[in-house]
């Protein structure tokens, strides 16, 4: 990989982060110049108390001074305080991160079954298998993922009673060790399957179309002419070459770990980033939302950078340019 390529991508990601930071700051400020006033409206605070709150939330000085103060805070890993719980935003986020990483990570891996299905469908384009899987992927694409969650919860949770209707574990559970783990797995099955169903279509479509793209290549013709069996041509020549877009899609999708489950977490009362986002919208708890947005955006930008670099490694033609 050329150094110039690496530097260009790094610089691109860096400016994007700066853009998001500026956007994040000015959006919340420009729309609402004096958040303290609106947050504590009707609380009958004295001028001195309001002033104190402004100092606490870094709302003194001109907008530019505030922006510099905000940048300084960010560099120290300080995202301010949640209005709801008065806890530091950073600690709320780190508590909520693990359940989300677990849930979305699991479902993203599950959804990758779609890649295999997509390759097969593309390989045998026009077959009944292709028609069925393509229609199904369009159908899952058309369903809001939280609605899939509601239907699954209604059917398998409330209706059939196979799965608990929400949460990370049974409330008031004192179980430890293996039984605690099994309880958590039991709670996670429904939401992770729902998310997997929601994501699977995209993998299928991308894998299928990149396989179809590959089918036109001459080297497949050559491999067949050499007398290779069909399955072997697919495995040895077609799939490796159809892998590129799929790898980059997977890398990008891992960037959505924090934002992928906002609505679904709220259905399953899953105590993660999504639920915190939902609560912050409902509040509205603006400092919390600001911090969450930064985290979500940063994860996506990072994943895009990784995807770009991976592409450069896997396809030297890209990095050479």
């Amino acid at each position, binding site marked *: 990989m050329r150094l110039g390529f690496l530097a260009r991508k790094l610089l691109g990601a860096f400016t994007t982060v700066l853009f998001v930071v500026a956007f994040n700051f000015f959006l919340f400020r420009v729309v609402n110049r004096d958040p303290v006033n609106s947050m504590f409206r009707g609380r009958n605070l004295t001028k001195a108390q309001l002033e104190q709150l402004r100092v606490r939330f870094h709302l003194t000085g001109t907008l530019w001074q505030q922006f510099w103060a905000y940048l300084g805070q960010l560099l120290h890993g300080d995202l301010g305080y949640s209005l709801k719980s008065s806890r530091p935003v950073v600690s709320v986020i780190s508590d909520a991160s693990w359940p989300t990483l677990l849930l979305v990570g699991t479902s993203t891996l599950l959804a990758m079954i779609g890649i295999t299905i997509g390759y097969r469908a593309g390989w045998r384009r026009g077959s009944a298998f292709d028609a069925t899987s393509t229609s199904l992927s369009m159908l899952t694409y*058309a369903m809001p993922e939280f*609605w899939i969650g509601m239907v699954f919860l209604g059917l398998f949770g409330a209706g059939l009673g196979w799965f608990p209707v929400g949460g990370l574990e049974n409330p008031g559970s004192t179980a430890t060790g293996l039984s605690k783990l099994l309880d958590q797995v039991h709670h996670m099955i429904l939401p992770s399957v729902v998310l997997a169903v929601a994501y699977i279509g995209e993998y299928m479509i991308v894998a299928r179309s990149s396989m179809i793209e590959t089918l036109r290549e001459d080297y497949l013709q050559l491999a067949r002419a050499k007398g290779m069996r069909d399955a072997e041509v697919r495995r040895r020549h077609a799939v490796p070459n159809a892998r590129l877009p799929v790898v980059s899609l997977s890398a990008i999708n891992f960037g959505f770990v924090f934002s992928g489950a906002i609505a679904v977490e709220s259905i399953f009362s899953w105590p993660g980033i999504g639920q915190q986002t939902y609560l912050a919208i409902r509040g509205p708890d603006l400092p919390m939302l600001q911090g969450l947005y930064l985290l979500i955006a940063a994860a996506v930008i990072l994943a895009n950078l990784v995807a770009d670099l991976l592409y450069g490694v896997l396809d030297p033609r890209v990095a050479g340019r």
Partner: protein
Amino acid sequence: MTEIHPDIANGTDIAVSARAIRWQRRRTATRDALRRLRRDRPALVAIVVLVVVAVLALLAPFISTHSDLEAVNTAANPVWATPGSHFVLGTDNLGRSVALQVLWGARVSLFVGLMATLLTVALGTLIGIVAGFFRGWLDALLMRFTDWFMVIPFLPTAIVLATVLGRSLWIIVFVIGITSWPSTARLVRSQVLSIRERLYVDRARALGASRTHIIGRHVLPNVAPLVLASSTLAVPISILTETTLSFLGLGDPTQVSWGGMLEQARDVAAVTTNRWWYYLPPGVGIILVVLAFTILGRSLESVLDPRLRER
């Protein structure tokens, strides 16, 4: 402006106006596209579904008044009535007819879906044409900006904007439009880059045509079909986004929408108490409309781009 038809070389002296040639070509292209569409059964079904939904949505004010949706528990409007002869789809926790809510919700979905797409396409086309046609530092700046918007996650950005700006249908339209124009901008730009190098643009330029003339007469008409297909595919995304925003409580509180119904269903625990008639119908509505637009968009795309036809 009159051009001499090539037939003059054969000795037949026919002068055909450029306009006539243009219309002739358009007629052939339209007839061709329609013929292809007639053979495309899924696209026809999609059109029928969309027409039916649109007609029902437009008829909603004639079938019922909006105040029917504000009914509270009365003898005539019992709460949680199961689907049956009186209420086709039952009633909700306040005794409101679910069927009427679905009907009124279709208006919001279609309105937001179409309006947001219009804004997206207008912004994207404008930025794409300006960047592609004028090149230089303006192009570099606009594309940097587009790249930023491409990378930052679309839904969270929409959520943050909607939370800060307030709750109304127009704000949702604005929020979706402002976050989803980049892909259209890129598409249009790449198309413009290839069009501006064509011979007929050179010819127009040599004849002293102004930039507005070239953009209006040569660039826009050539970009339009592509934009049409991509905007048809942008409608379902707008509708799904509106649904998610409403579900998260960012919808217009004065309007019944499909996402808002699902939000309400979750809030009153319709799912865990097995009141399926409250949360299934709005979902089915969303799926029908989104699928129809997706199928239509894909088939438009393949009509306009022959390379996609074999897929």
